[in-house]
């Protein structure tokens, strides 16, 4: 859960074990294009993408067992590096590619979903709402106690993400307005690690992909706007970003088929199911 290797093993194992179970529920239509394809498709990168990638891969491999799809995490930075160096066919990012990345590797980018980034606290924290400037002050380390923002008298524990994180980038740009994050903030390497850390620490504050939020953490509303995908879709919740799949040059036939499946009606249903908003191609 914490290490990237573990995540890969976990995803790999769950994909491997779930495929035989899902063989029964084969539904064709959007999957027709996989009928004549065989081979391996490797996907790596952003951790927000994993639920969608996993389910799409399961459906495809159940339809045609000759297709093998592996999914690894690692974060947006790893996604760019791996696809750029040809180690995977699809590299996922939770942020747009930089011009330098496009130039260096010749990457093509396919945004397929919109995801919000929620500010989260421990469910034991009575606080429900914060203003954007309060959040900026908290993460800059200038507000140090929960009582200063209307909470109980306890020290605030900051949790942030590593520099390669796409989640961090959108949070930093859209909510902190590129403001400083205190040096003393704890740094965690994935959305999953963020959830575990905040779920355990009653005085914690952090941020993560809305798609990963569950009952173990509590999203904070910002200026009265609840952080959920509905508000992200209708534009009232502004801390959103697109999720991208990237290929080196034109996608290979198998990667092309995968991309088309994600953009098909089946694919968009999966995207919505996991709390993201599908984008058309």
């Amino acid at each position, binding site marked *: 859960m*914490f290490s990237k290797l573990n995540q890969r093993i976990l995803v790999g194992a769950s994909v491997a074990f779930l495929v035989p179970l899902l063989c029964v529920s084969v539904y064709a239509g959007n999957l027709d294009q996989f009928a004549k394809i065989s081979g391996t498709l490797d996907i790596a990168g952003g951790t927000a993408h994993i639920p969608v990638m996993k389910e799409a891969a399961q459906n495809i491999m159940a339809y045609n067992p000759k297709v093998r799809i592996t999914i690894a995490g690692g974060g947006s930075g790893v996604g760019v590096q791996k696809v750029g160096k040809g180690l995977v066919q699809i590299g996922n990012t939770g942020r747009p590619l930089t011009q*330098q990345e496009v130039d260096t590797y010749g990457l093509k980018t396919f945004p397929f979903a919109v995801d919000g980034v929620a500010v989260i606290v421990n469910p034991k924290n009575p606080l429900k709402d914060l203003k954007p400037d309060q959040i900026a002050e908290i993460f800059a380390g200038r507000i140090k106690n929960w009582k200063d923002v209307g909470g109980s008298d306890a*020290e605030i524990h900051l949790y942030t993400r590593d520099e*390669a994180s796409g989640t961090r980038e959108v949070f930093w740009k859209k909510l902190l307005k590129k403001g400083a994050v205190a040096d*003393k903030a*704890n*740094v965690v390497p994935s959305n999953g690690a963020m959830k*575990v850390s905040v779920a*355990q620490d009653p005085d914690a504050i952090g941020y993560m992909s809305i798609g990963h939020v569950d009952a173990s953490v509590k999203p904070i509303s910002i200026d009265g706007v609840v952080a959920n995908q509905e508000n992200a879709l209708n534009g009232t919740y502004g801390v959103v970003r697109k999720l991208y799949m990237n290929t080196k040059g034109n996608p290979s036939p198998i990667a092309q088929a995968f991309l088309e499946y994600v953009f098909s009606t089946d694919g968009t249903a999966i995207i919505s199911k996991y709390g993201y908003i599908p984008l058309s191609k």
Partner: protein
Amino acid sequence: MDTYRCLNDTRKGLVETLIESWLFVAAMISAIAVGAILFFLIYFAWPIFHEDHLWKLLSWYWRPFQDQFGILPMVAGSVLLGISSMLLAYPMGIGVCCCVYGLGPRWLSGLTLMIVRIMTSVPTVVYGFVSVFLLVPFLREFFYHGSGFSWLAATLTLSLLVLPTVTLIVNAQFELFDPEIRLATTALGFSPIKQLIWVVIPASYKGLLAAAVLGFGRAVGDTIISLMVSGNSPQFPHSMLDSIRTLTAHVALVVSTEAGSMAYNSLFAAGIMLFGVSALVNGALRFIRAGSE
């Protein structure tokens, strides 16, 4: 007779030469590998040393989005964590060995050694995982300061990792003296504790030093425990309860940033620092040993 002996010697010599050259090749490959690692680190870090970026690296602030790439907090983190976990694990390891060799009851020594041997086979990620769910919340509630992810949590966890290394090396050294010296010293009227203090420990000087070098290397080189437990804040700690980031965890966290960026290139400097810290400690302990002989 002379001819025969001569022939025999040549034959022996041939086998010996083969073994010697084989060992020489093995030693050379190891040495070349270490040399190549250092060479490539310097090669990749060259752009940083070359331009006026160097002063940027030698600062106390790691804020890549504000163009500050100081790696000193991580150097301090690695050194402090290495020292603190050795301060805990080293006396503990020697204590365990003393207990096994004469101070404790026989049944206990066998059991202790067995447990320590089992500890070597526990994957480090297991120590990290258990710490995140047990030790970190405990520290957070017990001290009522900080998030629990701290220098202290990493020290306690890491000392568990280093303990078997120290214990098994010192133990191997102590075993060399058993049982002849024990018999001789007992005959001279030494109690078990005096045997340890006046005979076994002074005579195991080299083993104790080797245990310190290897233990410290293990502590500084570990990545997953510091990544999971120490909190990873790029700051100089003001108390044991503050969050710290080690060089190894720093490399693991930053390696997935954009290749060729300043943050990415600074990692090679971090690698050289890590190399330097290990080499320095190694050298220092060798120096102490040379001075004492």
